């Protein structure tokens, strides 16, 4: 019985791996068909997917709130850019370094965070998000207000003459997103993931069950920060520079918003959150022009829609639209099952 279950699980694992690979292949062809703007948006979506999944891991699973992931993204971006400029490291190593440096920052923050709960942690990370990017002005190696250039280089010639820079961005970000999702998904299904969930549901009970909740929380913060660092470096890649103004408070909020819209307790809806964040400005533009609104309305409509959605989601679909749908379907099926 046990063996059978195990085999079943293994089979499930391999289907998932297959799905991820299939997704990658699909994206590869997709990037050939659509225009440049869409490709660029695709890269942005991939970046947001990574950032949002780092929040879902942290908040949805380990129950810790961070309003400061924008700052951790900045840490990753600066780490990558400095290594690229000062030591001319290969781009893949820059991204690895972004993960590691941000993870170290996350571990430090996490050690403080493990002693804090709910609003205290939120406020502390908020203070970090406001304060940290401005530190860049203190060190000349970080380039001050103008920031640093971050150039991942041209796509390899082997990919052909037609292969554009944006497509290259999209490839890198897309691949990074697939790898991140794959890693996070496996982490969440591991003993670590269960420890996080147990700690979130009931800290005392988890402790009594032998889980070191403090260490488990710090670990969650470290991993989440590392992933956020990767997202930051990729974001810097798509912009081309790393500067304090690229990582404003609004970025921290946007990522959190994406996570809530995605359904903060499951990884399943992460793409929904990322897509919404990227296409809302476009939709808002459309609405504003239809209504013939003034300039100030047009520029601020996306912000209004995103924030409004955030409130409405928390109030009416607190677990996110995807999870809500799944729960309803499960309930429906259970009802059907009971009548048979």
């Amino acid at each position, binding site marked *: 019985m046990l063996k059978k279950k195990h085999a079943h699980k293994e089979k499930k694992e391999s289907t998932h791996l297959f799905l991820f690979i299939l997704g990658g292949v699909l994206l590869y062809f997709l990037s050939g068909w659509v225009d440049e703007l869409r490709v660029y948006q695709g890269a942005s979506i991939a970046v947001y997917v990574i950032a949002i999944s780092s929040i879902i891991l942290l*908040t*949805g699973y380990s*129950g810790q*709130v961070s*309003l400061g992931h924008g700052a951790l993204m900045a840490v990753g971006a600066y780490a990558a850019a400095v290594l690229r400029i000062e030591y001319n490291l290969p781009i893949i190593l820059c991204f690895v370094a972004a993960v590691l440096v941000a993870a170290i920052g996350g571990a430090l923050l996490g050690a*403080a965070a493990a*002693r*804090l709960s*709910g*609003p*205290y942690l*939120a*406020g*502390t990370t*908020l*203070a*970090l998000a*406001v*304060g*940290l990017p*401005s*530190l860049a*002005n*203190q060190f000349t190696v970080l380039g001050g207000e103008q920031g640093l250039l971050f150039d991942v280089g041209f796509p390899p010639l082997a990919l052909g003459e037609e292969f554009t820079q944006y497509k290259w961005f999209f490839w890198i970000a897309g691949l990074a997103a697939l790898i991140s999702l794959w890693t996070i998904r496996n982490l969440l299904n591991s003993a670590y993931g269960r420890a996080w969930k147990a700690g*979130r549901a009931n800290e005392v009970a988890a402790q009594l069950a032998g889980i070191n909740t403090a260490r488990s929380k710090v670990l969650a913060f470290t991993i989440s920060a590392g992933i956020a660092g990767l997202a930051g470096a990729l974001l810097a890649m798509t912009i081309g520079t790393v500067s304090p103004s690229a990582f404003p*408070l609004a970025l921290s*909020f946007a990522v*959190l*918003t994406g996570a*809530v819209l995605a359904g*903060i*307790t499951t990884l399943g809806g992460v793409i929904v959150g990322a897509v919404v964040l990227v296409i809302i400005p476009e939709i808002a533009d459309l609405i504003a022009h239809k209504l013939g609104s003034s300039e*100030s*309305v047009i*520029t*601020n*409509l996306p*912000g*209004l829609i*995103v*924030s*409004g959605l*955030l*409130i409405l989601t*928390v*109030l*009416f679909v*607190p*677990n996110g639209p995807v999870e809500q749908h799944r729960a309803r379907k499960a309930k429906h099926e259970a009802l059907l099952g009971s009548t048979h």
Partner: protein
Amino acid sequence: MQLLNTLLIGITAGSIYALMAIAFVLVWRSTRVVNFAQAGMALLSTYFGYEAVSRIGSFWVALPVAMIGGAIFAALVELILMRLLVKHASSGAIAGVAPIIATLGLLGVIRAVISMIWGGQDLRIVAPISNDGFTINGSTLVFSPLKLLILVVVVILLILLSILFQRTNLGLALRASAHAPEIARLSGVRVDAVRTLGWALAGAAGAVAGLFQTVNGNGTFSPDSIEFSLLLVSGFIAAVIGGLDSLLGAVLGGLFLGITISFVLMYVSSGLFFIAPFIVLLTVLFVRPQGIIGVKASRRA
């Protein structure tokens, strides 16, 4: 002389943080929510004040207008958003973070609406009196008539607030509802209404903080002004230093933060302006997690 200067600047800034911290504490006490939209509400009130100044021309009209506007807006937020939140999001996996996310959403909505109405550009409120420093024995202080005025007004407001809380039935109802809502209800206190009142008072306190932060700076403000992000962070930190539950603690926390930051900027590096509050907060949380003035959670049985 430099020492005195640094101290006085710290006290002035600290008194503004104290008002903001009071706003946080009032909201925390009434609904157990940290209102991250507090700075947005203060900003909105500042725009109310700006409208009053530009129509009537007097800062002394703008102040009460901003306070009343801020109070009404905060009361509406409690009546609509907070009550919906209690109704829909008080259980489940997201319950712990729902208020945080909802108030952040509110912050975004407020900012967007302000930008739509007033535009994104800098607006200016002229200070009622000069912000040029006093001159003593030929040397000029940074401490100015304006800063003195801010201090005096804040002290007056604090006295009024403490009379309200310590000497009136309303204050008793506010305190009872904060510490033990069920006992308050059983004593006939309309706890729901008292909660709304707590938010309204917080809105008024935040309004004063917003106006003073603006005139104490360079007089300009905008929807994206970093001053207000800083006010949000500083007010929160001051409240945490004071234990989040105590009004006196909020005042002392504000002064402590203001003075500490002032000294750090003067004697360590002025480049630490934005990160200094974070460092102070981390230090406090590590040394005394229950806040400097906070009462120990354990009580005698």
